[in-house]
């Protein structure tokens, strides 16, 4: 069942993500993908994540597709102008890639080529509009395409952004621009997330809550200090601190959140960052079978 069908059918949808390698050796990425196969509805493929050069996400999506996984192509506006974005999308569509997550992208200054020219010809909202045009058989300039695309378009939102209102207003624009599903920034405070969901329910979109696997107290503190819109509450940090095996505790916390979120939102997006082979265990702990 495709991601679109699973969400439409009201299943509690699980997505995860893999990052293409910096280099040509795809063994590890495919190993991670193999661990996820059959356990998740779809797998996001990141796009030069954190503005660090990596293998093309379209190519990586194709590799996943060939191995029977359903990819979600993450596409940022940082490295491509509107021609390149459309070209990439048409290429992806022709390969059978159905899902695309429209992102503005981290600034190049945060990555490994900080002196590169940042593009941002479009941003996430405008990219969603262009995807809608391609689906309607036209390009961004209104010219007819030889064969339309059929993308299921998604976007991201930060439910714990500070301040929240500008982000919520942008969320509305993304919905208006054609986003059908959202994968959220990592959330840890389920109460706050529930109040976000109350507002999000006013829109005809599916929401997958971001679950970022905690590995240590240091990581939790780092997130609180450095990552926009991510707040690990103190009790969770205490729980990790008191654990004999913090990584195992992290899995347990993730599983607990996944269980708790069932019924609150439409699914979860698990970001394991290099520990993709642990995802099946998280799902086992959460009581979610194949």
């Amino acid at each position, binding site marked *: 069942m495709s991601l679109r069908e699973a969400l439409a059918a009201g299943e509690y949808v699980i997505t995860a993500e893999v990052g293409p390698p910096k280099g040509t050796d795809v063994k590890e990425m495919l190993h991670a993908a193999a661990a996820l196969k059959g356990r998740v509805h779809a797998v996001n493929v990141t796009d030069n994540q954190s503005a660090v050069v990596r293998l093309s996400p379209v190519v990586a999506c194709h590799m996943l597709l060939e191995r029977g996984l359903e990819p979600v192509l993450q596409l940022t506006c*940082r490295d491509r102008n*509107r021609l390149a974005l459309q070209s990439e999308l048409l290429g992806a569509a022709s390969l059978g890639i159905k899902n695309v997550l429209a992102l*503005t992208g*981290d*600034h190049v*200054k*945060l990555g490994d080529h900080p002196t590169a020219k*940042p593009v*941002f*010809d*479009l*941003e*996430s*909202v*405008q990219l969603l*509009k262009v995807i809608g045009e391609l689906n309607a058989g036209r390009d*961004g300039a209104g010219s007819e395409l030889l064969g339309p695309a059929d993308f299921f378009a998604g976007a*991201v939102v*930060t439910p714990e*952004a*500070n*301040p929240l*209102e*500008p*982000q919520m*207003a*942008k969320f*509305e*624009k993304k919905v*208006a*621009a054609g986003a059908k599903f959202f994968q959220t*920034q990592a959330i840890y405070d389920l109460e706050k997330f529930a109040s976000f969901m109350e507002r999000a329910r006013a829109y005809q979109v599916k929401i997958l809550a971001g679950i970022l696997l905690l590995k240590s107290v240091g990581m939790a503190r780092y997130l609180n200090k450095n990552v*926009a*819109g991510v707040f690990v509450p103190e009790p969770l940090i205490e729980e990790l601190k008191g654990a004999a095996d913090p990584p195992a505790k992290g899995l347990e916390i993730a599983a607990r959140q996944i269980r708790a979120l069932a019924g609150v939102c439409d699914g979860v997006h698990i970001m394991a960052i290099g520990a993709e082979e642990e995802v099946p265990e998280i799902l086992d702990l959460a009581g979610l079978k194949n």
Partner: protein
Amino acid sequence: MIAAELKPFKEINESLLPFERVLVVGCGTCTTVCLTGGERQVELLATALRLARKVEGSSLQTKEATVQRQCEPEFAGVLKEAAGGLDAALSLGCGAGVQLVSDVLAPLPVLPALNTSNIGVAKEHALWEERCAACGDCVLGGTAGICPVARCAKGILNGPCGGTNDGRCEIGDAPCAWTLIYERLEAQGRLDDFKRIAPPKDFAAATGPRKLDLREVADEP
């Protein structure tokens, strides 16, 4: 106004090594105001360059001239005479000034002493901040008078990116322009302007070489 900062001294000094007699040219408008290219800076820089050359065991002769605006032939024209018998000029004007001086003094080599930084405003004494990127298609009317092109690091048009935190920009030491825009639009009761989806920007309007041609309509000087 145009804000420009002094290039590293070493770079300026090295760029002048092939020359022995140099005209050091200040500009009496923007770069005087931003304390990098006025009469006083011309004098200081010329002295420092002569001294550096001496330390290196050779010599440099400098002549100083500051014109009201390097970007207008009317003012820059007088430099022609001042440059007679010299083998290069060093301009402390903005990039536009350097180029007009270069045209006026051709074929004399003209070198830049400043890095032109931005079109900005004086925030407080000795602090200028960028406000306009001369995009050729001004959107300030819908953004509460705060420019997302020049003041958002990504120059995006539909609201804050996900990297903003506590009202700060994802990179660098600056407020998030889109948080400022949202807050001011809200205070003005104009959030509908925020909600409207901005179409892709017309970058043709920002593609050079551009000009402003009012010859048909402007009065004779």
